[in-house]
């Protein structure tokens, strides 16, 4: 029986963790299997949850979030017969599968859409906790914006420096309003549960927003321009499907293997033009083929298109 | 005016937990009279009056006002029945104005401003009528206690009280303020109001009351017409036996100077000067008594000498100066110099009520090497042994070192404090109100112990508001008024009248430290704010 551990944002953050949950749900529906799950409510539970699941024979144990990294690094050797999968972090242990995403590629594409859609020439980015991973989103986004619209300005804000930043919709909303007042007419939220507040504020103020991780277009139809899909669901689904034979090692999910992408559905078809889509697809092709490189912030902790 | 009593209480009982404060008390007070109530501390006087005022609820009993049975569940009902009360401890809001205090609870209508302006008019009328002048816009914290008491009386009158209860109103007043108060009370009585006056001072009872009731141990022991009784008789009723007022003692044989105080000055937290240059000395083998109305600096003097108030000036013990401001100005350093101190308030300072007797015997002397097992730990067994010995010698009952201090009666609590301090055989013993709230038997014992210490050649500085106690115990008497020494007398060569005048700040030029350079006329000083 596989197990899934959600990070602090909680299963229903409408974003990252929820995507993981959807993947597990899909696996359960397709195979009729069951899985154990737990939502962490405190830091100290991480290790305990891992150990308890491993001890109880759950296999594989899937966890979402980089914060599990150091804990898993320690726990994994204690349970050599259990397979672990961690998302968003690389843990170098023989029984661990590490899944990371090329968020900068997906962010580049939504950035392009923002650059094409903006009327004010200013677009915003609201990150959750200020960590390299989120800067990677921001950097990809900014590159995309500039690629589509060289004159555009990107304003970037982070919600905070602690995990609380993933779950602070009030602050997200206020940051959005601040960016709107600075001229932004599109904001991209890469902030977990905080993003709920961002999207809400954008809808309230009548501007566009861009969702993240899950398809968030349905949250405010006509206001959410698109969502940067990060197929955590796929990663979880695959891990669970492989079961005890989970293939360990390093696993990158990018545009090429449909790990990231943009969300198009009936909720946003009216606001996304054909021309816009054509340009985005063209760029995606180029990225996949290697013709175009999107700079990854985490490769050298710097960003050519944005200053933090 | 009907001939029904203005107040009649029948069978009032009240217990506070295990303490039976009032037991089956009945009393009748006729309208248009002043009725006195006397009794020892803790006799239950305040409790009885608080029940009448609806502040406490009686466990049983009935109240009749003007012949009608009245239930008084709360003070509102008492006010409605025409009762007003001035409490022993005033019930005023310190940072409200006089006006606000008077209106509080008697406002008219929900909006404040109209009732305030209406009250202001009424207040000036009342003030004129009864000579109760107060500034309605002054804050309570800015006026003296005498003034505060007027506000309390005005509060009652504003509520149209026909029956006025005053609980120990003169304890905080100077004699002249007290005289003024009694003039007012007589005026009220002449208007037909009924007044109940609680006091400890037999003289006041004899002067102003028409009838007087005596309480003892929660019971009403007698009610008599004032004209038909005498102070001695009342005292006997109060304590339940003949009172021996004189202390048996040989004349003093003073030795060398032990304590020398020069020009001591103290300011309180509010910056008011409470000691204004006090100088005195005490020799070994004598008891020097300090007389004065409470709040004239005696407490501060003891506190400075005892080491818990900082001061300016010079103090020497056996010729050695002691630190009045620095690190060595604390109680521990004083004790090291051989100063022991029986504080005025045993509940507040002298004892830790929640500590057991043995812990209290070590109190203040907890650093004594005899009480230590080693460098780190105290030797509790030694302390308990020592306590048992001391309790036996001082006849503390019950002689149980493990009993919590609050479970001893007042007299025995005081004996514990005295045992602790006197058994140290100090060079100088400071004693404040040694027999306050202590029954007569214990008083005798305590006085004997003090005299015995004196006879061992030690110096004793005694502060007491009981003039009788000072006169019978002290060899020399110093009178304090408003932070200054008014005069000094040899005990056998003075009388209450002379001391009373000094206590009121009236001094003859010859001997007063104040009078130097003055014209030689009689002077009347201003009282300081009471404590």
């Amino acid at each position, binding site marked *: 029986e596989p197990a899934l551990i959600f990070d602090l944002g909680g299963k229903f953050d409408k974003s990252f963790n929820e995507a993981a949950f959807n993947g597990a749900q899909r696996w359960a529906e397709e195979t009729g299997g069951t899985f154990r799950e737990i939502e962490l409510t405190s830091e100290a539970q991480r290790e305990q949850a891992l150990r308890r699941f491993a001890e109880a024979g759950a296999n594989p144990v899937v966890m979402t979030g980089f914060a599990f990294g150091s804990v898993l690094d320690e726990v994994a050797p204690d349970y050599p017969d259990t397979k672990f999968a961690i998302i968003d972090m690389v843990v170098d242990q023989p029984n661990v599968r590490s899944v990371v995403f090329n968020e900068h590629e997906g962010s580049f594409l939504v950035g392009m859409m923002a650059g094409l859609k903006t009327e004010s020439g200013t677009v915003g980015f609201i990150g959750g906790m200020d960590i390299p991973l989120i800067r990677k989103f921001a950097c990809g986004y900014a590159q995309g914006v500039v690629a589509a619209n060289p004159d555009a300005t990107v304003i970037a804000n982070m919600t905070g420096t602690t995990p609380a930043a993933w779950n602070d919709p009030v602050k997200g909303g206020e940051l959005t309003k601040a960016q709107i007042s600075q001229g932004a007419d599109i904001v991209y939220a890469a902030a977990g549960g905080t993003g709920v507040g961002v999207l809400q504020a954008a809808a309230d103020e009548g501007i566009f927003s861009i969702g993240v991780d899950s398809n968030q277009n349905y949250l405010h139809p006509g206001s959410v321009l698109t969502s940067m899909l990060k197929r955590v669901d796929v990663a979880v689904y695959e891990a669970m499907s492989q079961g005890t034979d989970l293939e360990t090692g390093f696993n990158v999910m990018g545009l090429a293997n449909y790990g990231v992408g943009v969300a198009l559905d009936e909720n946003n078809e009216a606001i996304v033009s054909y021309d816009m889509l054509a340009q985005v697809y063209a760029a995606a092709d180029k990225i996949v083929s290697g013709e175009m490189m999107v700079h990854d912030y985490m490769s050298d902790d710097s960003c050519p298109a944005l200053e933090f | 005016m009907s001939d029904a009593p203005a107040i009649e209480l029948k069978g009032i009982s009240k217990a506070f937990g295990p303490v039976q404060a009032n037991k089956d008390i009945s009393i009748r007070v006729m309208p248009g009279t002043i009725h006195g109530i006397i009794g020892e501390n803790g006799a239950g006087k305040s409790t009885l009056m608080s029940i009448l005022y609806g502040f406490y609820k009686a466990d049983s009993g009935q109240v009749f006002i003007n012949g009608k049975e009245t239930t008084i569940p709360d003070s509102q009902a008492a006010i409605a029945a025409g009762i007003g009360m001035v409490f022993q401890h005033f019930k005023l*809001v*310190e940072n409200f104005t006089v006006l606000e205090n008077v209106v509080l609870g008697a406002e008219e*209508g929900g909006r404040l401003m109209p009732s305030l302006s209406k009250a202001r008019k009424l207040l000036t009328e009342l003030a004129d009528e009864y000579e109760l002048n107060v500034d309605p816009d002054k804050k309570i914290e800015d006026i003296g206690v005498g003034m505060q008491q007027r506000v309390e009386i005005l509060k009652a009158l504003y509520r149209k009280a026909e029956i006025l209860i005053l609980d120990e109103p003169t304890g905080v007043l100077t004699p002249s303020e007290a005289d003024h108060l009694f003039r007012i009370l007589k005026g009220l009585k002449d208007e037909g109001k009924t007044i109940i006056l609680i006091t400890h001072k037999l003289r006041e009872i004899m002067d102003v009351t028409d009838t007087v009731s005596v309480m003892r141990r929660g019971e009403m022991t007698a009610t008599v017409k004032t004209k038909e009784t005498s102070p001695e008789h009342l005292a006997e009723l109060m304590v339940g036996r003949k009172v021996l007022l004189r202390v048996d003692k040989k004349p003093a044989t003073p030795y060398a100077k032990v304590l020398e105080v020069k020009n001591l000055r103290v300011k309180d937290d509010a910056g008011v000067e409470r000691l204004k240059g006090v100088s005195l000395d005490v020799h070994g083998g004598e008891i020097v008594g300090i007389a004065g109305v409470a709040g004239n600096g005696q407490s501060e003097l003891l506190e400075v000498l005892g080491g818990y108030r900082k001061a300016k000036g010079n103090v020497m013990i056996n010729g050695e100066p002691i630190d009045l401001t620095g690190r060595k100005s604390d109680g521990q350093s004083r004790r090291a110099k051989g100063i022991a101190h029986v504080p005025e308030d045993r509940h507040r300072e002298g004892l830790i009520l929640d500590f057991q007797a043995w812990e209290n015997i070590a109190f203040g002397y907890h650093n004594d090497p005899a009480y230590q097992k080693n460098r780190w730990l105290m030797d509790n067994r030694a302390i308990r042994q020592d306590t048992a010995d001391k309790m036996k010698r001082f006849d503390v009952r019950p002689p149980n070192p493990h009993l919590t201090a609050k479970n001893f009666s007042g007299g025995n609590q005081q004996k514990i404090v005295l045992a602790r301090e006197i058994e140290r055989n100090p060079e100088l013993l400071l004693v404040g109100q040694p027999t306050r709230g202590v029954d007569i038997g214990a008083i005798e014992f305590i006085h004997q112990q003090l005299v015995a210490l004196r006879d061992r050649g030690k110096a004793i500085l005694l502060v007491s508001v009981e003039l009788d106690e000072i006169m019978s115990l002290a060899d020399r008497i110093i009178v304090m008024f408003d932070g200054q020494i008014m005069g000094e007398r040899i005990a056998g060569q003075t009388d209450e009248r002379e001391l009373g005048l000094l206590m009121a700040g009236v001094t003859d030029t010859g001997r007063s430290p104040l009078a130097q350079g003055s014209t030689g006329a009689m002077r009347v000083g201003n009282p300081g704010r009471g404590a």
Partner: protein
Amino acid sequence: MDFLTFLQISDTAVRFAIPLLFACLAGLFSERAGIFDIGLEGKMLAAAFFSAAIAALTGNVWIGLLAGIGASMALSIIHGLASITFRGNQLISGVAINFLAAGLTVLIAQDWFRQGGRTPSLSDFGPNARFNSITLPYADQMQDAGPLGLVYAELISGHSILVYVGFLMVPLTWYILFRTRFGLRLRAVGENPAAVDTAGVSVVGLRYAAVAICGILCGMAGAYLATGLQAGFVKDMSSGRGFIALAALIFAKWRPWYALWACLLFGFLQAMALRPDAVERLVQIDIPGQLLDALPYILTVVILAGFVGKAIPPRAGGEPYVKER
């Protein structure tokens, strides 16, 4: 910082200040009556949850507001029982109430909505499920009518009804405290309850009244958080605002108008923490956000220490009124 940026930060500051203000005035009523209340946080949190939950269930934010007030009142009554009727330690009671709210809101939220301790977004329940912002008349036209017009359009207009109610509460509180019989008695009971008692007024009644008012105002604070500022409840959403309100109360020396300024100041600090860019442009140095976060508390400690004007609490504050030992 240009004027517009300033206005926009102020606008955020107003929204942040309002929950503080409600809670601060709540504490003011309670503490002026002699009941210390460190449970403002908990009451706010409980109110936030119940207002959002009931608004979600009924689709009507006004019913939600009532529910929030009810929840906050329930905790107030517990506090009253502990500190008035049973003469317990008010601080301990406050601590307990904070925990109670933190635990119960999540527990109930999980039971009702199964969303990990949050309510669903209120925007899913129709337009009446939350307090929407109100555009004051002519706000749009005033936008270009000089700086005053800008202030009107950007700062004054465009808040939800509770914001305006919050500001109205300040003069109202002042009036009640200093111009009514009730206020006189309330202040007296916080200074010397024995004086009130002997004047024939019920101390217990007054203190319960104060605690109840505190409950109502905390309820509005919480409801504003969850249904005005946000569209739903998330776990721990009061995130220390109750304590900042407490700090503001001390900062304001227990006075209503000062409370307004203190809350606006603290709201402004919070708003500045959101705009490190503007702050940096203003002061030319990079102030760590954490310092801005901590500033309200630091300022309060400074005030408490009496270095800048002494804050003297109501004299009978924190002490149960004991007539019979």
